């Protein structure tokens, strides 16, 4: 059926030379990124605005996108971070009381290209079997030759966390319960909300802030956020976190990139998963409560299980599907982290208890990790 689509302006070109054609939507643009898939059936706006997707082109496995449009209340950051969106079917007449514009309009505004009419299941299976792959997305009718050239001319970056972090120290929230130093690698709004709603006041620190500056703030707790890229590229953050691990005697909690940086700081290792975990349906087993939770996930890297043991950590959470590390805690210190996203958004809220645990620890509670 591919020959039917010769005239279509939407193009997905993969580094291995394979081509998928569809209709362009959103901004007329061409971008290069890492192609990943996400299995969430709802939450496309939150996904696109999640800074962790910086540098990535997202294909959604659920075929009908844009159904409820775009609202003013579903942004996880100031705008779209993903480099492109690949979908099967685009809804042109969204319906929801909070809808203010269509997905198409929003992508245009946000200068992000989209392609629809793609066999996203085929693409997903391709990623599943070959791994995440470098990809060109174009909605402006470029030729395959152009796509190939553009693909070759740009390198994928792994240091996006440096770019999406806040540029200067920012105070947030007036809660009097705890002072939290937030090491920002590209935080999702709902993480901040989850902390503030528990009475925390937050101090956001830009990427590269020294451990000393953070300690000088005299926080009750330190939080390491999610963020895009390869954790091994976050050398400065790993170094400073190692100092914090040694010197700060307050609870530390990390999510996703924060978890990986914490692992590296503790002397552990991370590795790239073949195609990552992105969606809102993975079961995670909590070795402490012996219960399982359905989690929101978005990560391309994982922490090597054996590697963290030496650094004084133990595994607290395991992915039920592939047995990868989903969480760890320090054997003695009130330091813990998870690979998945307890702040959900999008995804299930089952693991919100982790924020409670962090707050309890900061208040000097005995909920020791």
């Amino acid at each position: 059926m591919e020959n039917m689509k010769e005239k279509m302006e939407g193009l997905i070109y993969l580094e291995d030379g394979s081509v998928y054609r569809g209709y362009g939507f959103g901004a007329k643009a061409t971008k290069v990124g890492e192609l990943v898939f996400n299995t969430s059936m709802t939450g496309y706006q939150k996904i696109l605005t999640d800074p962790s997707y910086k540098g990535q082109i997202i294909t959604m496995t659920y075929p009908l996108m844009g159904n409820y449009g775009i609202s003013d209340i579903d942004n996880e950051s100031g705008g779209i971070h993903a480099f492109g969106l690949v979908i099967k079917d685009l809804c042109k007449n969204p319906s929801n009381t909070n809808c203010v514009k269509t997905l198409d309009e929003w992508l245009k505004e946000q200068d992000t290209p989209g392609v629809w009419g793609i066999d996203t299941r085929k693409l997903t299976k391709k990623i599943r079997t070959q791994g995440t792959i470098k990809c060109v997305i174009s909605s402006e009718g470029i030729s395959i030759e152009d796509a190939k050239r553009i693909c070759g001319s740009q390198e994928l970056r792994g240091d996006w966390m440096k770019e999406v972090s806040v540029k200067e120290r920012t105070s947030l929230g007036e809660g009097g319960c705890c002072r939290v130093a937030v090491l920002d690698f590209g935080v999702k709004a709902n993480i901040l909300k989850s902390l503030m709603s528990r009475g925390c006041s937050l101090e956001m620190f830009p990427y590269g802030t020294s451990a000393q500056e953070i300690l000088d703030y005299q926080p009750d707790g330190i939080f390491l956020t999610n963020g895009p890229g390869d954790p091994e590229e976050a050398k400065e953050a790993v170094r400073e976190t190692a100092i914090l691990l040694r010197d700060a005697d307050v609870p530390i909690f990390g999510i996703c990139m924060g978890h990986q940086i914490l692992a590296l700081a503790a002397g552990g290792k991370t590795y790239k998963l073949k195609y990552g975990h992105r969606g809102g349906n993975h079961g995670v087993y909590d070795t402490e409560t012996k219960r399982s939770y359905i989690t929101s996930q978005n990560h391309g890297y994982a922490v090597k299980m054996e590697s963290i043991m030496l650094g004084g950590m133990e595994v607290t959470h395991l992915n039920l599907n592939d047995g990868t590390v989903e969480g760890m805690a320090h054997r003695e210190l009130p330091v813990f982290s998870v690979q998945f996203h307890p702040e959900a958004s999008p995804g299930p809220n089952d693991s919100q208890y982790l924020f409670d645990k962090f707050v309890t620890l900061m208040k000097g509670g005995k909920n020791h990790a």
Partner: protein
Amino acid sequence: MPRKASLNKLLIIGSGPIIIGQAAEFDYAGTQACKAIKEEGIETILVNSNPATIMTDEGIADKVYMEPLTEEAMEDILKKERPDGILAGFGGQTGLNLAMALEEKGILERYKVKLLGVNRESIEKAEDREEFKKLMQSIGEPIPPSIIATTFEECHAFVKKIGYPVIIRPAYTLGGTGGGVATNDKELELLCQRGIENSAIGQILLEKSVAGWKEIEYEVMRDSRDNCIIICSMENLDPVGVHTGDSIVVAPTQTLRDEEYQMLRDSAVKIIRSLEIEGGCNVQFALNPDNGEYIVIEVNPRVSRSSALASKAAGYPIAKIAAKIALGYNLDELKNYVTRETSACFEPVLDYCVVKFPKWPFDKFRTASRKLGTQMKATGEVMSICRTFESALLKALTSVEIKCDGMRIPFVSNLDNEGLMKKLAACDDERIFCIAEALRRELVDVESLYEMLRIDRWFLNKIKGIIDLEKTLQTQPLTKELLYEAESRGFTDTEILRLSGVPREVLQDIRIYNDIFPVYKMVDTCGGEFDAATPYYYSCYDGEDEVQVSDEEKILVVGSGPIRIGQGIEFDYCCVQGVWAIKEMGYEAIIMNNNPETVSTDFDTSDKLYFESLHIDNVMNVIKKERPYGVILQFGGQTSLNLAEKLYSRSINILGTPYQYIDLAEDREKFCQLLGEIGISVPEGMAVTTQEEAFAAVEKLGYPLVVRPSYVIGGRAMQVVYSDIELRRYLKEAVSISAEHPVLIDKYVQGKEIEVDAVSDGEDVLIPGIMEHIERTGVHSGDSISVYPHFTLSQEVEDTLIEYTRKITKALKVVGLVNIQYAYDGNKIYVIEVNPRASRTVPILSKVTKVPMVKLAVAVMLGRKLKDLGYGTGLYKKADYYAVKVPVFSNAKLTNMDMALGPEMKSTGEVLGIDTNLSRAVYKGFLAAGTRIPTEGTVFVTLRDPDKNAAAAKTIGRYAKAGFHICASEGTGAFLKEAGIEAEIISYQQALSQIGEEIHILINTPKVANRPESDTFPIRRKAIERGLPVMTCMDTAAAFLIAISMKQNETKLEYRPL
């Protein structure tokens, strides 16, 4: 925790007969549960009175009690079997209610039987309205203002406070029986009374109506560790106000933002936790589209119709996992059966859109109210899967077998604008077609439709998109791009040809040159994230085809589509058996079907499952893909058989009886001629194509006559007429007579009706058993009480039946199954009907005679000979017990339908009463059917003139002798008096008011059926709605006396496994 070691023997309660609101989904759930338990090495005992099911088949449970689902029977069985535990959550409301009763009476405790999966408190909390309200309040979940009432006065006072509209729901009922929305005092009174009567505990819930809100459902599972997962979310296209069983339902939710989705998910999880259910549960929500506010409508603390749908929609076997949880497993200890590698503790994701469409029985019940509301009326449903919503919707419409090829049906297309708008507002079963037509005619736009119907704009816009595409097809040249677009939005070839006006060859050429064919994608629970092992496919127009076609020889079984009256679960039974037999014979078995409730569409039934519409386009596409050695059409009832002509003309190898003979059996004239040649009589008759011809036929044949259109399912539109007036009315109202649609007029042979099911290999025939009907000819065989083995026929008659069957099967070259209905008037045997296919009685006879009929049928279709198959030929040896099939009706649920028995089938299900003694078997049959059996009180009798005879007088006399007070209408009273029977004469009016109060049994053989304005129609309706035993045929009335006397004598019944 792994499974509890203390469980060595478990008992499962089935759901009994199929009724509206409780259908094939429980066969599916029960079968899965039995298999899940059995594979753990636990001895599995099943109690279910429904013989048509796969679950009661040999090999599913270790022991099957096909016995009435009564407390007495259960106690007896528990005493005998002493199981360690009992699973009630797989038998629908019937199973739960029965388990509750056993628990309450201390019977479970007495025999030390643990109730697994659900406990009494959970059931009470979920189903008792007051308890539920309390629980919701305690966990902070919103519910609408409501009261629990047991009297009308309470209801009235409540409404005064909160205003109309209000919803009335009886506690403990099936499919919302007796519920409704009241908008004024009169409706309130009616609904309250009916609701209180229908509730098992005399309670109803009155609540403020949230009609017009979005209706959202979640299927949740929980284990004993408190791990919870959502299997599937569903959004009803029809907003709150239409029962979800009667709604078009889409999975997953389409119009919910993540926050809204998660809000309801949190609530569903909280609810299942608070109920402490270990297994599956369904939670229904109403969501205010204007502000995102929600309320909890209802919780079903068990597997349900929705969970069957969710299982098929998501590919996650809810019942199987629920059974494992009941055994003690936790979700995170189980594997995903579809991927086989990943965990069962996850939430399935769909990478397609699912549409469920209900199948309603209104084509058969002309007088029944078509209005949809809170009482479910659908008998079955279809599901379709595709990558676009439009395509899923259109596929569903072609699946439901209402002869549509797109979003149009003639009745709606032919309405004038005013009529259309009126029907659109009426909220009936054809609303979706009205929406399409109104948009097509540009009488409305999406916004005005939304204001009127409160169907979410998203759905309306999608329908509008379909109409726009129709217009593009009408106005633009059919390019490859347009054809592809139309195909990927689900348009059928017929529709594309009609709209575009291009000849079929041109369309084919565009298709072939541009390779525009469907591909098949897999349902894998995970959106392609993991490799999956299950061969469960649907078609779509997209890039990659995932089907791997093997090198094996394949056989395709075409399924029976949605459950409807006249074509029920029996045919699914035959399809499943067929698939198993095909596998056993060493072929790859492929099934195509669209019914989400059934075992045939379970992911591990066949080697390959195509979940597809059975439209010829879709069937041919699968055949083209798989290139099967042959196709079996005789198991799927009329649905699959109707494809015979089309497949034959496309040179497809139809296994079994050749097409020419299938056609011949249905061509009245040719058929009669053939029978004449072999010396077998048929009731005299003819096919007519005009009124004049019809009355000429009357001249020749004389009344009474049986009239019907040719090619019918379940005697649809068949009637016995006694006079010119009735005939004229029939020709005018019931059928549109024409040259293409002849009407068959036959002499009505009064006598015994006999049913023979047989397997033939073209030479020999094997008759597993002969069933004799209690009711005389004139009552549809599906609605008659029938007895195996025959009990009044002489050896000579039996020999003749065997001989005739042999001759007919030979003459018709039957290979496989055949069902023949005979009439015997005391002198002569007539053939009424020959169905060269599986029939309703195949599962019954297979089970009672232990002759695997379907398996033999497959073997002979594949060239084996009966004489080599080990069951002999001729009539198989009789079993040493009687099996009495008693039909079960859903009359109470269908407002204004006439329940009088006639040639048109009305029952939705059946039960079997089995005993060595015929009377006891009859008694068991009535018990199992749930018929109320009064032992004293008053019988009201009113008979039509042809029934005022000696036999009827004798029967009524026996009621009198049994101690019943006899009341009668004037004419009937006079007749009885003449016959020496005392009867109090009362008017119809008096009778109507006394139904359910002073009157306990109604015996009424109506002059005419289907006439709401007649004197007796309202009496029958009221009696049915009040749950009275109603006999509309004197033979049934006589049989019922057997049950009455058994009960009066407190006959002790024995319960035995098959």
